[in-house]
């Protein structure tokens, strides 16, 4: 695999961000949900200033593999979701 990966376009990057945020919303566990959301936003912000096409392509490929992992894990977590929701979630919803 010595061929250099093509640099993703701006639209592709934003589409990856959207997919990651959407999949993070699917998690049933409050903590994992918040973590994935926070991590994707932080990760994209950190790599915002990358200009070298190969590093951009690498970051994009990393993001894509993370997206695959997150998709699988969302399904697995939903299989074993506890019946009782986390207290933080209940309190934040009711505004207490």
């Amino acid at each position, binding site marked *: 695999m010595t061929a250099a990966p093509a640099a993703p376009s*701006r*639209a592709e990057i*934003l*589409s990856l*961000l*959207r997919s990651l*945020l*959407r999949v993070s*919303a699917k998690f049933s566990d409050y903590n994992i949900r918040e973590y994935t959301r926070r991590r994707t*936003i932080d990760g*994209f*912000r950190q790599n*915002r200033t990358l200009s070298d096409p190969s590093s951009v392509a690498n970051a994009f490929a990393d993001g894509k593999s993370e997206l695959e992992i997150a998709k699988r894990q969302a399904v697995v977590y939903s299989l074993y979701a506890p019946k009782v929701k986390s207290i933080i979630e209940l309190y934040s919803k009711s505004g207490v």
Partner: protein
Amino acid sequence: MASIAGMQICLLAGPRSIHQRSGTSINHGLKTSVSFWRTIAPRLQPVLPQLRIACAAKPETVEKVSAIVRKQLALPDDSAVTGESSFSALGADSLDTVEIVMGLEEAFNISVEEESAQNISTVQEAADLIEKLVEKQKA
């Protein structure tokens, strides 16, 4: 559909009833009813060169959108965020825009597609798109 049926009753009743009709169809936007009336009876009002079919979004929707935008961009509560303010003018970059759109999806319980999401640039556009999607969902 109901508002178009209402238009026909309006024609028979005469021009004065346009105000009452506009009052009941306020949710569909005054612009729709007034523009339709103008094409049917041009002698009453000057014909517009362009016919605006778009329905304006409700002020509460615009308010809600502005609140989400303010929270995302960490603007103070008294900052001027109107329907005409564009996201980039308020200091949002494309990442912020995506986050704002996701926040709107969550708040209004809708699902925005890729292409529509990329074309949103002002608060008003976002509110209009939201209204359209909420209408479609209710139908």
